[in-house]
């Protein structure tokens, strides 16, 4: 399994807002355990999708020059359960941005109905800082296949 919790970007306004879609599918293994007989998209993975949308929005704003790390979720709320066959639309906007980090406000909707909202804070780490030299870049958003979701919005198709 790949740690990619958005499928594609459909709107992207650099430094302002980004919209990504997540199609929930019964092909996803975890839905069969969460819960047996009642497949439900885990709230934690919706939060991850919201963070990936917001993280790429902030990263792109700074030309992906820093390591963008999810640092804190000051606020998150869920309105209803989401199941297979539904498409979640994550809309992230930049709420704050400073040299040390930034915050995004993300709203998740399904067919126009709000299903979750979150405020997500990211810290920026300097790639050239020796303290982070040992960081495995593959674990980070911009070096991973997740960027395929970003490219998918541009070209229409992409090999992940």
């Amino acid at each position, binding site marked *: 399994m790949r740690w990619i919790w958005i499928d594609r970007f459909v709107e992207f306004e650099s430094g302002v807002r980004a919209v990504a879609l997540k199609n929930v599918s019964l092909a996803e293994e975890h839905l069969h355990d969460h819960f047996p007989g009642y497949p439900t998209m885990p709230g934690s993975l919706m939060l991850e999708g919201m963070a990936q949308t917001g993280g790429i929005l902030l990263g792109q704003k700074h030309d992906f020059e820093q390591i963008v790390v999810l*640092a*804190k979720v*000051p606020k998150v709320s869920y309105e209803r359960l989401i199941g297979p066959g539904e498409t979640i639309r994550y809309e992230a906007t930049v709420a704050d941005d*400073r040299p*040390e*980090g930034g915050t995004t406000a993300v709203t998740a909707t399904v067919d126009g109905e709000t299903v979750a909202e979150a405020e997500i*804070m990211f810290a920026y780490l300097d790639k050239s800082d020796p303290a982070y030299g040992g960081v495995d870049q593959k674990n980070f958003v911009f070096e991973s296949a997740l960027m395929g979701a970003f490219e998918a919005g541009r070209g229409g198709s992409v090999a992940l």
Partner: protein
Amino acid sequence: MPSRDEILENIREILVEALGVDDDEVTPEATLQADLGAESIDFLDISFRLEKTFGIKIPRGELFPENLAAADSGFVDDGVITESGLAELRSKMPHADIDKLAADPKVENIADLFTVEMLVNFIEKKVA
């Protein structure tokens, strides 16, 4: 210009939201880390909220200076902050109670400079 009481009230709301503490825990003498459980990333969150609430800009390092006790700074000797270190703190953090730290200048006591009252002092100067 808001009064000190008004500033404290706003800061109380900010800390309740940022740190998930009860409002009666946010007393002027409470320390952000030891008493209110703040971690380093919370300082960034608090800075954002202060900027928004009071309509100010807080340059990096002005409210919460970084690397105060770095090994090569020359400001620390055998776990104790030197006179020059205390002088540096006084100039960098006029909003903090350095006199109290000077009475027991152990490095680990630096964290106790970050009190609710320190935030009130900082904002009071900033909005003046």
